[in-house]
Structures are given as structure tokens and as C-alpha cells.
């Protein structure tokens, strides 16, 4: 469990009221304000707050969810399935759950902390994804319920994640708690984020329920939080690894850790990845023939340095420097009868971030984060038919970021947080098109206030986010200043004290701001764009349990959601397809269900199995224009059914991993007709790992992977064929 994953589940309800903690806190009050608030928390007032809270929850639920919900039942009747399912689970649980099961016991490996939350939280750690045959964050995220990883194929292919069909630009990414951003394109290529130095990947619908976090963590429709191992240097040691596989894949890595003393530790992690990637696929032109992907090579270097200084138990500083550089071919989509592809992309990302977390007093904490980021990319097309017969685009992005967050616990029920972020970003280009380029500078202020109340069986958290965004340009029109308030509320309730079960709800309103490309892309950008708004509603139920001996743990959750997206920013062609412009056209109605089941059984001292299953149903509708043929048709690339399974079998030194990914058919952009259909797929991966002893300890780890076991020819995006059967093997040694 990562420190940032907040313990909001019923774990927190374990300490009984009379355990003295609250009394101790009371004794430590020093100011009148503290006394005043402590007095407020008297039994009567607590009762009133509870009543008011329940009332608030009830009305919020009624207003925000029931209206679409009733419509949903009337229209589709599908929500009934959830209700029935929830009912069945409840009935089953009430019949099965022994009264003796005390919530206090649930502190073991079962992930109550990430299951019984106010929002759906899905998490994988390194031990798990090692079995997933994964290289980049994209390979892990695709197993989460409700995600669509748009994978353009191969190691170098773009991979972005859209959560619940809201769109990839709505997914915020935190890297060690600090936002990663690409103000130019808005979508982070998850294929560029290696798993080598990560220890945890967590996906939060809506936002992380933690209090001490930057305001930017509240500013997306979903948040993907990535935690590195950088601050985990608890000894002076080293790990060296090497992996190799199909299509010239070669991937050495090295990590050095140094623990100077109890205050200071540092680590350095470096990795090289290369592949020619020219895999074969079924040719589109002729049945039965095979074609080869062209221009798919990639070379990438990544280095990360981390340093942590712990003053004492209440204060620490983290520093990270990150560098990534890659050169790759852009194979593009397969074009019928035309195999030529020579476009290239080079990019360099450097960022340095520092964070200071301090517990100021028993009840108040603060966190300050700062970051500087530099991002360079160069795109070339030697086949471009301009006068020079060469197209070169060179862009530079710089970003400065400062964030301060403060939390205060009024008492054991009520706490509050305030976070304020400032981001400065700029985009410059240095190529043949600099003349009249707006060279935008962006000032982005975010302020967020959160109030959280938690009783034994009820959590309510609400926040309001203020956005102020101003762009300054050197040429062309200056867009209007954007000012907006957006709220979010989340609640979870434990209906029966003895059951480790929670019913949860959230509502969130948020938008994504137009990116630099949306606004200023030469001839295409549109400075009049409005932000793209999304409203999310979620109602779910989660259960987390284990038996007494801690041999069998399991958790399950089912969430139903409704998303409404308006003013979608869409590229629309002008007179011909070589001239596009960005417009706010697009309204989407997205309804679905995400279900996650996790079980871990220790059979005996040798054998252990863990199973994770996820399933998502969604019904997406384009409701932009009633007179369009696309009205009430599915959104592009949104499958009705998708799911994944991960099974790991542990036997002594061996681990066998089996992974499954499935998607029903989808349609590419256009009407839902046969010509636009992209077929569904079912992909199987297996892996076998074992550890070996070296100098008396299990320090050597070897793994063999077979990906796409049945050599299935499939596409995630139409005309971007995915790799077939492939092999990888790796070994790593701890020194």
C-alpha cells in the first residue's frame, strides 16, 4: 500500500471511540479555536451533523443520481442488473457472514484500503505486474476495469488511457504525487513511462480521496498515480537486469541504492530500451498473405535520480530528477497499397521535482511541491511534398510548477484541506514555421478546498476547485481568461457494522482546458475554444474480506456510472482533409458498470494463488446532433463489453502468471455499420518466473514470457495491427 493511498475504508473504523485517541487529542488542544471545535463535536452535535450529513447525502443522491438513474432504468433496464446483483451479494453476505467477523481483523493483505473507498480505486504493484508481461505503464493500466488503452501497436506506438470513455485528455497522471503534464498535446504517452523504476500503479476514478495532495489532483476526471521505488533505498545495494525478446527487443537496466544514514538515502536508476519492432501481421490487401510493419524501430534511454532526506518522523524532503530520450520511427496506420513510412520522432523529457512534507502539529500537515519540466520533440517527414521535400517540426515546452497543500483535523470526525497550485507553461517552436506562431505562455492557477467528515460507518468528502487560466500569445488572438468553479462530492456508507461492505457514491464536475495544440496548432488551432466539460455520477458497492487464518482474502466491487460530456473538442476538416480546425462539437452520454473481483488463497506453505478479474459494460452514445446519422450511435472505439483476468500461481520459487484481455467489437469513427467495425479480441499471455539463490539468498530472478499466446491478429485502433506471438526473457540480480 502506498502512503498516498488514503485509508478511508473501514480500516479506519477499527479503533473504537473509547480507545483514548480522541481523548488524547483533546488534551493536547492549545488554542480556543481547538477547544471550540472540540466542544462542537459533542454527542448532540455529532448526532446533528450525522443527521444533516445523511440528509445531504440523501438529497444529493436524489438530485444528482436518481434522475438519470430512473431514466436509465426506464430506458435500458440495465441498472436493474446492478441492483439485483447488489441485492444478491447483500443477501448472500448476510447469510454467510459470521457475526464474529470483526472489522478490526481486516488489516492484513486484503486491500480494504483500496476497496472500501468512496471512489473506485484499482491498484497493481510490482510483484503483480511482473507476471503481466509488461514493459510500460500502458501494459498494466489495460487490466483495470473501465479503461481503454488506445494502443497504436508495438513498443514505440502511442498508448494513451481513457477512463470510462471520457477521453484520454481527462486522465491526470501523478508521478510520485506530482502532476505530469503535456500542455501541448494534453495526452501523456503511457508507452514512454517504464515500469522498471515503479513500485505501484493506482487508478482513481474521479480523484484520490487523500487530503494532503496538490490541487491538480482534483482537476481531472480520473487520476493515474504512479509511485516509484526512488525513496525506498533502505540499504546500500544494487540491482542489475537484462531482458531480450522478439523483434530485436533488448532492455538492460541498473539500479544503485545508497543509504547514508537514517536521514539520507539516494538511488539512481537507468534503463535502455531498443527494438526494431518490425512484426508481421495479416495483410489487409489480400487474404492469407502476411505483411511486415515498417519504420517501427525505437531506442530509448531513461535515467532517474532520487534523494530523500528525513529530518525526523514529522518532516521529509524528496527530490527527483528524471531524464528520458528516445528516437523512434512512426509507422503510422497501415495504408492500403502503400507501405512507405519514413516519419520519425525524437523527444527529450527532463524534469526535476522536489517535495517537502511536514507535520506541523498533531492536527495539521503541509506539503509543498515544486517542479521544473523541459520537453523537446522533433518530428520529421522526409517524404513531405513541400519545396524542400522535408518536413521538420521542433517544439519546446517548459513548465514551472509550484504547489502547497495544507490539511487540518478539527477532530476525529471533521478535517479540511486546502491546496493551491500554480503552473506556468510555455510552448515554442524552432523550425520553418516560427513566423506568426503564437508562442503561448500559460498561467494556470488552481485552488481547492476540501471538507471531509468521517464517522464509524459514513464518510463524506466534498471539495470545490477554482480554476483560473490565462494564455498570453505573441501573435494572433488571445483567448479569453478561463475562470470556473467545479465541485465534487463523494460518500461511502457501511450499512451493517459487522460487514466489511460499503455502499459508495460520487459526483464530480470537471473540465479539461484546451491544450496548446487545440488552441494554437498552425492553421488548425482555435482560440475561441471552450473547455470540455464532464459530469460524472457513480454508485457502487464494495466488499473486502478474509478468513481468520489470513489464508483466504477476497474483495469485490461493482460500480455503476453515468458520464455526461459536453463541448468535446474535436478536429474537423476544412475545405479539404489537409486543413483541419478544432471545434467544440460533441456531447456524449456514457453509462456503464465496472466490476472487480480479487481473491488470494494460501493453500499451504508452498502453494498460493491469486486471481483478479475485471469486467466492464458500457453503453456510450453520441448525442451531439439529432439530425446527424451519428446521433445516438456508440462513441468511437468504445466496446460494450471488456474485461481482463490475471491469475498467478506461486509454488515455492516458481511463479506462473496467466493474463487475459478481452474486448467486444467496436466501431471506428463513423456510423455503426459493418465497414466501420473493429473486431473484438481475446488475448492470452503467460509467464513463468523463478528465483535462484546467490550467496545464500534468493537474489536472482529469471522470467520467461509468451505474449499473445495464440498469435491472434487484432487491432485496438483500426489499421494499427497489434503484434502477434512474441517471446521475452529476462534475468535480474540483486547485489
Amino acid at each position, binding site marked *: 500500500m502506498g502512503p498516498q493511498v488514503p485509508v478511508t475504508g473501514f480500516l479506519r473504523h477499527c479503533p473504537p471511540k473509547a480507545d483514548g485517541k480522541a481523548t488524547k487529542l483533546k488534551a493536547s488542544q492549545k488554542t480556543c479555536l481547538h477547544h471550540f471545535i472540540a466542544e462542537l463535536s459533542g454527542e448532540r452535535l455529532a448526532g446533528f451533523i450525522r443527521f444533516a450529513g445523511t440528509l445531504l447525502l440523501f438529497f444529493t443522491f436524489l438530485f444528482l443520481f436518481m434522475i438519470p438513474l430512473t431514466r436509465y432504468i426506464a430506458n435500458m433496464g440495465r441498472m436493474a442488473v446492478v441492483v439485483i446483483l447488489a441485492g444478491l451479494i447483500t443477501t448472500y453476505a448476510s447469510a454467510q457472514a459470521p457475526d464474529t467477523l470483526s472489522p478490526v481483523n481486516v488489516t492484513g493483505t486484503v486491500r480494504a484500503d483500496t476497496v472500501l473507498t468512496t471512489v473506485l480505486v484499482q491498484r497493481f504493484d510490482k510483484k503483480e505486474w511482473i507476471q503481466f508481461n509488461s514493459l510500460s505503464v500502458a501494459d498494466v493500466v489495460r487490466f483495470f476495469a473501465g479503461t481503454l488503452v488506445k494502443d497504436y501497436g508495438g513498443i514505440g506506438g502511442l498508448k494513451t488511457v481513457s477512463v470510462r470513455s471520457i477521453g484520454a485528455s481527462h486522465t491526470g497522471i501523478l508521478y510520485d504525487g506530482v502532476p505530469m503534464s503535456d500542455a501541448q498535446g494534453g495526452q501523456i504517452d503511457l508507452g514512454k513511462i517504464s515500469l522498471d523504476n515503479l513500485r505501484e500503479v493506482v487508478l482513481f476514478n474521479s480523484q484520490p480521496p487523500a487530503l494532503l495532495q496538490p490541487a491538480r489532483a482534483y482537476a481531472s476526471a480520473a487520476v493515474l498515480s504512479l509511485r516509484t521505488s526512488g525513496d525506498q533505498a533502505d540499504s546500500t545495494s544494487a540491482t542489475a537486469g537484462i531482458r531480450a525478446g522478439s523483434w530485436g527487443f533488448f532492455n538492460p537496466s541498473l539500479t544503485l541504492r545508497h543509504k547514508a544514514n537514517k536521514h539520507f538515502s539516494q538511488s539512481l536508476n537507468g534503463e535502455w530500451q531498443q527494438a526494431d519492432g518490425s512484426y508481421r501481421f495479416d495483410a489487409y490487401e489480400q487474404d492469407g498473405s502476411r505483411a511486415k510493419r515498417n519504420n517501427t524501430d525505437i531506442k530509448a534511454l531513461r535515467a532517474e535520480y532520487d534523494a530523500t532526506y528525513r529530518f525526523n518522523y514529522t518532516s521529509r524532503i524528496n527530490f527527483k530528477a528524471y531524464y528520458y530520450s528516445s528516437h523512434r520511427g512512426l509507422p503510422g496506420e497501415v495504408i492500403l*497499397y502503400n507501405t512507405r513510412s519514413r516519419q520519425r520522432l525524437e523527444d527529450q523529457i527532463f524534469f526535476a521535482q522536489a517535495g517537502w512534507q511536514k507535520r506541523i502539529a498533531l492536527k495539521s500537515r503541509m506539503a509543498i511541491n515544486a517542479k521544473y519540466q523541459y520537453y523537446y520533440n522533433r518530428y520529421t517527414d522526409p517524404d513531405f511534398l513541400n519545396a524542400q521535400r522535408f518536413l521538420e517540426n521542433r517544439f519546446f515546452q517548459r513548465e514551472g510548477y509550484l504547489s502547497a497543500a495544507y490539511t487540518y483535523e478539527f477532530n476525529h470526525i471533521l478535517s479540511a484541506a486546502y491546496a493551491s497550485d500554480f503552473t506556468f507553461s510555455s510552448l515554442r517552436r524552432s523550425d520553418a514555421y516560427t513566423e506568426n506562431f503564437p508562442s503561448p505562455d500559460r498561467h494556470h492557477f488552481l485552488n481547492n478546498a476540501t471538507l471531509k467528515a468521517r464517522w464509524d460507518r459514513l464518510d463524506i468528502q466534498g471539495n470545490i476547485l477554482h480554476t483560473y487560466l490565462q494564455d498570453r500569445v505573441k501573435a494572433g488572438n488571445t483567448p479569453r481568461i478561463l475562470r470556473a468553479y467545479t465541485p465534487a462530492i463523494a460518500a461511502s456508507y457501511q450499512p451493517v457494522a459487522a460487514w466489511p461492505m460499503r455502499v459508495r457514491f460520487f459526483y464530480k464536475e470537471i473540465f479539461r482546458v484546451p491544450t496548446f495544440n487545440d488552441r494554437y496548432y498552425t492553421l488548425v488551432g482555435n482560440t475561441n475554444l471552450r473547455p470540455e466539460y464532464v459530469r460524472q455520477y457513480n454508485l457502487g458497492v464494495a466488499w473486502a474480506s478474509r478468513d481468520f487464518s489470513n489464508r483466504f482474502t477476497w474483495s469485490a466491487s461493482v460500480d455503476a456510472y453515468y458520464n455526461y460530456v459536453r463541448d468535446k473538442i474535436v478536429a474537423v476538416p476544412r*475545405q479539404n482533409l489537409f486543413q483541419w480546425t478544432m471545434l467544440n462539437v460533441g456531447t456524449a452520454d456514457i453509462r456503464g458498470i465496472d466490476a472487480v473481483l480479487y481473491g488470494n488463497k494460501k493453500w499451504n506453505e508452498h502453494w498460493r494463488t491469486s486471481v483478479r478479474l475485471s469486467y466492464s459494460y458500457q453503453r456510450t452514445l453520441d448525442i451531439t446532433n439529432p439530425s446527424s446519422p451519428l446521433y445516438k450511435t456508440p462513441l468511437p472505439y468504445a466496446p460494450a463489453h471488456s474485461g481482463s483476468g490475471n491469475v498467478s500461481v506461486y509454488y515455492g520459487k516458481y511463479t506462473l502468471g496467466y493474463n487475459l484481455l478481452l474486448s467486444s467489437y467496436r466501431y471506428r469513427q463513423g456510423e455503426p455499420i459493418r465497414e466501420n467495425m473493429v473486431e473484438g479480441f481475446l488475448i492470452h499471455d503467460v509467464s513463468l518466473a523463478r528465483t535462484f539463490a546467490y550467496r545464500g539468498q534468493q537474489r536472482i530472478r529469471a522470467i520467461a514470457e509468451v505474449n499473445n499466446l495464440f498469435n491472434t491478429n487484432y487491432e485496438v485502433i483500426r489499421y494499427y495491427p497489434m503484434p502477434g506471438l512474441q517471446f521475452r526473457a529476462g534475468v535480474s540480480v540483486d547485489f
Partner: protein
Amino acid sequence: MKKKNLLPWTLALMVLAASCSKDDVNPGGPVLSPAQGVYVLSEGSSNNATLGYYSLSSNTLTGNFYQQQNPTQAGLGSIGNDMTIYGSKLYIVVNVSSDVVVVNAATGTFIKRIAFKEGSTNKEPRYAVGAKGKVFVSCYDGTVAVIDTTSLNIATSIRVGTNPEEMALSGDNLYVANSGGLNFPNYDSTLSVVNVNSLTEITKIKVGINPQSVTADDQGFVYVSCTGNYGSIPARLVKVKISDRSIAKTADTAAGRIRYYDNKLWVTGGYIGLPYVRTLSTADFSQTRANFVTDGTAIATPYGLDIDKQNGDVYVTDARDYVSSGQLLCFDKTGRKKFAVNTTPGVIPTKVAFNR
């Protein structure tokens, strides 16, 4: 079902086509027989260029006619930009796949796919015009490629300006709009004059920034729509006098596609203009009709514009939102709708060719 409907006209046309001598089109003023049906080409979004066929006798559209007639072919390719019927063949220009697909004009059956390559580089063909036993194809690599209609090979490539787009034939000369669209911000502004006998570029006429669409009248003039630079330089319409290659008239008006018929210019607005088909006076470009449609039929995005010179029917394609199937609309010359049909699965219908 649709196949059955097509059979009678197909047979009739094969007889008709066989009775005509090959490649005998006279651009001066042919006596046209009535169209049996119209082909409609849709650009598509990617790899789904679509050729449909609308039978004027059965009033039905076969949306994916090419696929139906050629089930063993994978499809036309990526971005069907233009087509022309010359002689007994239909030449379909597929821009991004970079080739010209030749099919039998009467039956739609596949004859040949001509690869448009210069060495290994794609020529990216754009528009096609037939003349003198040849089909001339403007290519983004700055050439007009000449297809020999007997061997169906590229006989030669004539160098013109940068990124040529539409062409118009007048007498023995082809007028080629050199857009320079890929050479942004340094657009081209010339019209190349190419002699179809000598297969050489005779001269270039400066007309205005970013010329796109060209049409010729029968009184010795050529009209060019220049798109401008989408910014400080506005779109303009230019009238060129062929005899002395002088500019006879210009007007600042946004025109997408322009066609000459019945002593008028028929003009779409393009992206930067209005979503109507207008008619303009050829003399002073004054607007004779702000919207040639007289019965209130709305067209969301008028995109392609072709006129059946035999009866004056005006065919407009509606690209709608550019992502869903478009529409083919036919009006009589007074602007009353004759029919409208969805081009499903064709996305962004752009060109109509008449099967006579």
C-alpha cells in the same frame, strides 16, 4: 438485391459502350447522351475510399458498388480524391494510397491499379482530366502525370508548380492550379498552362495565393478560385483571358469548387465561405443567386459540385460532419430537388461522374 436491379442497365450499357468508338471524347462541345446513372466517389477517412453507383432508372444507390463488383479486391484504398470517365474507363484517383484505379466505366469491374511512384516516393495524385487519348493526373510532387490510356501506364510526368490541384481543359491546353498547399507558409500562386499535344508546360500565369479549383468556359476564359492563406490574405476568384493570359477580373469572394455551366459560375463556399451553392455572373462575378436551391432543401456541408451538361442537373455532395456517411443530392437547374440519397458507407462524398 441491388445487383439484380443493376443487371438491365449494365447489359444495356455494355452494348452502348461497345457501339461507341474508343476514346473519342471531344471537349469542344460533344452531343451528350442522357446519363444512365452516376458514380459517386467518397474520400473516406482512412482506407475507405468508396465508389457508389446511383441508377437513374431504378433510383437506387449501391453504396459500395466497387466492392460489390470486385469482391476479391481489398478496397479502393485511402482517400479517393477525384475520378473521371474517359473513353470506356473510369479513372479513380486515390490520393494517400498513391495510385489510380482503372475500372470499366460501364460495369465498375477492376482493370488495373496504376502505382504513382517516383522511385520509391509517392507522387500523391489529386485530380484527373482526360484528353487526346491520355488521362492527365495532377500530383502533389509538382507534376502532371500522363497516363497512356492504351497501356495504362504513366507515360511521362510534366513538371508544373508546387502541389497542383484541379485542372481544366480549354482547347489543347490544360490549366493547372498550383496551390503550394504543403509548402505553407509559402503558397504557390500560379496556374500552369500545359499543352496536351507537346506534353510540356508552356507557361505559368500568376493568379493569386493558393489556387485550388479551376473551370473553363466556352468563350476563351478560365476561372480560378484562390483560397488565400487562411489569414491575412483573403480568398479570391480570378478570371483569366486565355488569348493573352491576362487577368480579366478578380473579386474577393470565398469559393471552394467552381463549375461553369449555362453562362454562369456555380460555386460552393468551401470551408471559409457560406454553406450554399451560389451562382455568379461570369462577367463581373456579381451574385445572380445567393443560394441556387429554390425549394428550401438544406445542405449541411456542400462539398462536391458537378453539373450534368446534358440536362443541366446539378449534383451536390454533402460531406455533413466529415465522419459519418454523406449525401448525394440532385437538383434541376432551377434549384428544385430531384432526389437525395445517403452515400452509406461513403464518408465525405466529393465527386460525381456521369455514366452515359
